[in-house]
Each structure stands twice: as C-alpha cells, then as structure tokens.
C-alpha cells in the first residue's frame, strides 16, 4: 500500500491546455474528473495509468489529464479498448474509462456487461446525468420516468419504458469486484464518492476483478435549471430512482 | 492419364468421410508431388447434406484448385452419382458405392467401377470405414500412389485408437483388392 496523502489545491494530474476547454456553468464533469485525479494522485498512479475517454462531454477530462490518454474512442466501446490494453500491458498498468450514461448503458451495453462478466481488471466510471448532454439533451437510458427531454417532450412514459440502474445491474455479474453509486451534491457526498472511486481503483490494483462507479452528475443547460437547483433535483428526484451506496464489494471472486 | 497430374473428386454426404478420404490422399501425395490442393465443398448444414472435395496432385504448379471436370470421381454415397457423373472427363473413371445404387451411368466414354464399400466395411466390423475402403479402391484402380504413403497417414491420424486403426487399414487393403479387379 502506498502512503495516503491529502491533496489540496488543483490536483497535479490536471493540466491546462493551450486552448480553452469550455464547459457549461454548473456542469459536474469537471468535479467528477477532479475526484479521479485526486485519487490517482493519492494512490501515486500517475505514471502507470491510461485514461480512456468515452463519447461524453466529459471526454475532455482525457485531454486535461497529465496521463497517457485516448479519447474520444468509438461510442460505447471504451471497456473493449481498455480490456485489450490491460491484457497486453499487464497488471502494472491501471486502466480507467470515463463514460457517459448513454455511452455506457445504451450503445455500449454489450461492451460494459461483457467486460464485467470477464472480470476485466479495469475500472469504469460512468457519469449519469439522465440525458444525452453532448447532443443537446435527448432521452438517455437513465432518463427518469416523466422527465422531459428533447426527444420525450411529453415526459418519459411507457412508449420509452423504464430507466436502467447501471450500478445495480453491473453488481449482478460474477466478474464484478466492486460496484457503487455516488453523487457530488454536498461536501459529504463528495467525500463518500471519492471513497468509492478509491475503493474501485484499489480493486484493480489488487487484481481482484472488474470495478465500476456511477456518479450522478448535473447537466444544467439541458435540464433547464440553475446549477444550484440541479443539485436539489438530484437529491430530490434522481436519488429515489438511483440510490447511493455500494452494491458489491468483494475481496475475491468466487 | 498423364503421370504428371491427377485430379479426383470424393463425393458423399456429410458425416460419411468423403472429405477425410480426400485429405488423407492429399497428405499422402505430398511425399511424391510438389503441388497438391484439397478443396472442400460443403453446405451450411453439415450432417446428411452433400459434401465433396476435389484433390489435385501434380508435378506442375496447380493453377486452379477448382475445376469442373476431373479425371476421376469416387462416389461414396450412391445418390450423388447423378450429380458427379457429369464431372468426369471423357476417358475418366467413376468408382461408385453399390449400396442404395438406383441410377445407371448413361455415359459410354468413362469407366465405371461398382464397389460394395458399405457392405464390406460392415463385414469388417465398422460401417464408418467405408470411405477408406473407397479410397483403397481408387488407389487399387489407378496406382497413382504407393499404398504405404496412405497407410502412414492413417497411422498418424488414428494412432490413439488401435482398434479403429486396424479396421481402417483392413478396409483400405480390401478396397485396394476390389479396385485391382
């Protein structure tokens, strides 16, 4: 085990690019990225981590990481790509994917589920903002019932069917060592989510199995809400569909 | 037939070993001929569907492993006679299984040998050796390869099951005898 260090200020693994990287006000991809950077720095994984950016607004985190990185990769397929890297480079290399909810559990369902089933020693982070942010706010597999999006103008109903609880689903698979869901709506939630991220990465370091963390994440412009109201909406509406917590935490696969 | 090049089709239905018989011949021919091709023609359904292979062995480069008309056809399943009778060149040879044989060869420009492969193989103790009996009949009829070369390949392939090997060798030898006649 490496010595635990407390990170303050901007994480060292976050870099500034010569060109401005824009994000909408109140977007939480930056905060999710920050948690991961902090944990990578605390675990001293900066030298041997590869970051795979899926198709999501948050793919920018790949470019902002002072890590070997690739992204955007073909939509939904980051777990396939990460699996190949891990098999070829071996245990010493840490593979993380950063994906959106549409990326991971709509178009990339096969890739995610199969990687978990194979017990790939990779860690998948999925930001869940209940819509397709990059394309302008369409329905995602995670969109709540009755939630209005540009493709469910009357609200999600039985035409579209039900949302998918990804962390619980991934937790069902025998190859999964760890699956959890966090939010970052308060300092307490931030610290709890950070603990999940750290545990997930530790499962990979310890070579136990597949690890997964879903993070509820605000998308103010597409939700049509002020940033602060987004946090309230997550607490009041999203968490009832997507409860926070750990759904699987194994020391070894059986 | 020129001694420089031989072409033969083995035709049966899936599971009878037409492809295996052809492959044994091809592998054995490698010792004598620098150029050998084996082309299998099977359908998506494997069991009981028509299956054949073309084997060509030659001193010269084989331009095409597929040719429509060949020097000889060994029909392991008699129902295939109609299809393959036409695939033999004038002056060529057809060896056909007698079991279930209903059709007559209408052509007068080819030699036909009727071999009771299945019946003989059954008498030897295993109907599944009929393909090797027919391969033996081909070698006995054409003398295009020393039988020992094929025996070696049989020994390689069935080395783990002495009983099967023994029946196969006996079927092959019996085929050679029937082919000579």
């Amino acid at each position, binding site marked *: 085990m490496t010595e635990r260090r407390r990170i303050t200020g901007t994480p060292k693994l976050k870099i500034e690019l010569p060109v401005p990287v824009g994000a909408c006000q109140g977007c939480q991809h930056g905060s999710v990225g920050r948690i991961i950077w902090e944990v990578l720095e605390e675990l001293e994984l900066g030298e041997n*981590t590869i970051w795979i950016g899926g198709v999501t607004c948050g*793919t920018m985190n790949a470019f902002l990481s002072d*890590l070997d*990185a690739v*992204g955007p990769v073909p939509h939904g397929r980051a777990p396939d790509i990460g699996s190949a890297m891990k098999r*070829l480079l071996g245990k010493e290399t840490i593979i993380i994917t950063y994906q959106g909810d549409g990326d991971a559990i709509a178009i990339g369902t096969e890739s995610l589920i*199969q990687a978990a089933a194979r017990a790939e020693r990779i860690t998948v982070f999925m930001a869940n903002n209940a819509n397709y942010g990059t394309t302008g706010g369409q329905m995602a597999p995670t969109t709540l019932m009755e939630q209005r999006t540009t493709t469910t103008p009357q609200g999600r109903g039985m035409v579209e069917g039900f949302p998918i609880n990804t962390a619980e689903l991934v937790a069902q698979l025998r190859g999964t060592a760890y699956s959890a869901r966090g939010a970052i709506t308060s300092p307490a939630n931030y610290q709890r989510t950070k603990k999940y991220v750290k545990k997930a990465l530790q499962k990979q370091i310890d070579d136990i199995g597949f690890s997964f963390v879903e993070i509820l994440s605000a998308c103010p412009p597409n939700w049509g809400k002020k940033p602060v109201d987004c946090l309230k909406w997550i607490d009041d509406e999203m968490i009832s569909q997507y409860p926070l917590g750990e759904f699987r935490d194994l020391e070894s696969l059986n | 037939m020129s001694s420089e090049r031989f072409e033969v089709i083995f035709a049966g239905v899936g599971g009878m070993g037409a492809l295996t018989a052809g492959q044994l011949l091809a592998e054995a021919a490698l010792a004598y001929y620098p*150029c050998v091709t084996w082309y299998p023609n099977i359908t998506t359904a494997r069991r009981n569907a028509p299956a054949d292979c073309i084997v060509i062995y030659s001193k010269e480069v084989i331009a095409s492993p597929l*040719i*429509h008309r060949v020097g000889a056809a060994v029909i392991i399943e008699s129902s295939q006679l109609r299809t393959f009778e036409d695939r033999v060149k004038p002056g060529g040879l057809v060896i056909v299984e007698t079991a279930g044989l209903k059709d007559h060869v209408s052509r007068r420009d080819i030699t036909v040998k009727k071999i009771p492969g299945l019946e003989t193989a059954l008498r030897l103790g295993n109907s599944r050796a009929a393909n090797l009996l027919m391969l033996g009949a081909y070698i006995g009829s054409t003398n295009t390869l020393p039988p020992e070369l094929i025996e070696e390949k049989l020994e390689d392939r069935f080395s783990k099951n002495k009983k099967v090997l023994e029946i196969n060798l006996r079927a092959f030898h019996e085929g050679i005898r029937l082919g000579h006649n």
Partner: protein
Amino acid sequence: MNERIFVNGNEAVGWGALAADCRAFFGYPITPQNEVTEWFAREFPKRGRIFIQTSSETASINWLYGGACVGARVMTSTSSPGWALMQETISHMVNTEVPCVVVLVQRGGPGQGTTRHAQMDYASATWGGGHGGYKNIVLTPASAQEVHDLMQLAFYLADKYCNPVIVLSDGIIGTMMEPIALREINFNSLPEKDWALRGKGRRKDGQRRLLSSGQGLIPTSRNPNYLTLLHTLHNKFQQMAAHEIRYEASLLEDAELVLVAFGYAARASLQAMNWARAEGIKVGMIRPITVWPFPSQIVKEEAEKGVKFLVVEDNLGQMVMDVKMASEGKAAIYLVSALDRHEAMEGGAIYPEKVLEKIKELTAS
C-alpha cells in the same frame, strides 16, 4: 529454415501472423473463417500470446483499437456480415492513425447471404467501408502461401503507415488446403512506436502521450486542427498509392485479351489462360495483389495497346469499375461474374471452364 506444411488458407493466416510477431488476436466466430479463430485459440496462448474470443465483431475491432493504441501488433479476422459491423471503428483507427490488420474472408451476400465463398466485399474494402472517405491498403492473396506471406506484409505496411491494412481473402482461398513454406520475410526497419500509450512512467521523456479518434476536433501534437488532419491523411493515402501497388502480370507481350482477376477467381482465370494458350489463343492476365491501391497504370498501358479486358470476379461487377476507370474508355471490357457460377446453390463458383468459354467467345473470328 523453410518448413513445409499442408494447411488451408485460413490456417495460413495464423502462421503468417506468427512470423510477423503478432501479439494478440481478438475475434468472433463466423463462417467461413472459423479455422482462423480456432487456429489462434490453439496456437497463441501456448506461445505466450493473447487470444480472446470477443462478444461481437464490433467488440473485436475495438479490442484491436485498444491493442493498437498500446503499440502491439494485433489483428482480427471475420467474414462479410462481421466486416460490416467493424466499419465504424476502422474509420476511427484511420483518424487516430494507429495500425492493425483485419482479415476478411468473404462470403456470399447481401445480408446473411451464404456461408460460402464470394468476392462481394471488394467495393466496401477498397473504397473505405465506413464513414468519412478514408483508405486502407487492401491485399488479396490467391493461395495459402500468399496468405502466409501477405500477412507479414500487412503488418509491416500497417506499422509503416499507422493505418489499418485489410487482407481480402475468400471462402475458397480460406478453406482450400495447399502446402506452404513457413518463412520469415525481412522488411526495412521501422521507427519505434513512440506515440504508443504505456503509462508515462515507462517512457524516457516522462511526458504523456495522447491519442484521439477525434483528431481535427481535438488538437493533438500530430494534427492541431481539422485541415491539418485532412492534409495528413491525404498525403498518407497518396504515399500508399505511389509506393504500394503490387500485381502479377502474365503473358502480356502478345496478348489480345487480358484477364483481370483476384483471389480464387484469379486461380480459375489462370487455369483458363493456360488452357487457352495451349490452343494458341493470345491471352494474358493481370492479377492485382493490392486492389487498393489498384494497379491502374498497367491496365492503362494495356488499354492503350488495344487489348480487350475480361474481368473475372465472383460478385455482380465491382472491380470492373476500377478497370473501367483505369482504361479511360480506351478498351472494351467484359465481365464474368457471380451470374456465371456453375450451379444455382451456394456452392456454385466460377470455374475455369466458364472463363475459357468466355475467352473463346471473345477471341473468335
């Protein structure tokens, strides 16, 4: 040491890949290429190499993407429907500028088509089957030996250009057995893959590497903007077209009719040419080994000599378009196609007898 073994064209893929020091094979079963996947399952793990049976062809090509990004020689193999599923990521790999080898053992189409041979993916392979108008070098073997040899060339060219290379086989070349000599082909040395991702700590300069299939959208050190990317790719495609054309020409000197064929149809055509020559018919042949870049110059030169062309291909007429473009309207062009198969069922094929018949028809009078 040239060991001689008797294998089919699908197994020759494996022996060739091994000689090229391929590290990993990722594939999904599909007929008629299953011997490829099974060869790697049997032969790779015991040699410390990686074999993974993936969950789909879409998965396979993305495993390739991952393997290519870390700088390993990686490959997959598939047949026509699986080939279609791979297109998006092949396009992404061209954008990312990473190498890989894809073997396509063509079968009948469209749709589920047949599980047997055909040459119906010529157009999709040579014109960049996916989105965005890219190019891949496409090699077409016509024998098991050539499969083995071209696999090695494919890995070399993929690394040389940092671009996917396609080996375009077919169900007949794949399942037909022939003796092959195992031999390692030597190529010029290539620069180390300094761009490959390994974790920055494994690198002397300690600096991160960034790869992206969004080059043009995302500024990378190779291509800071979209127009730079387009220039880079255009130059690369032009380099390939200038340096990588390969073909085999036979008996063109006095030929009045020139056959043009690849893959198994080239074998049938060669046989037909030999028979025709034996009867004194002046026929020659051009067999493209690269179908992209296409050997246009030799076709053009022949066209200018006033020959007729007979294109032989087991599809409804795809390569014939390249022959038409290359001959610039200066030659009469005829076609033996999938409509000339010898029988109606899926096993039907273009036999040399049919090609000879057509040769005689075109050279009569």
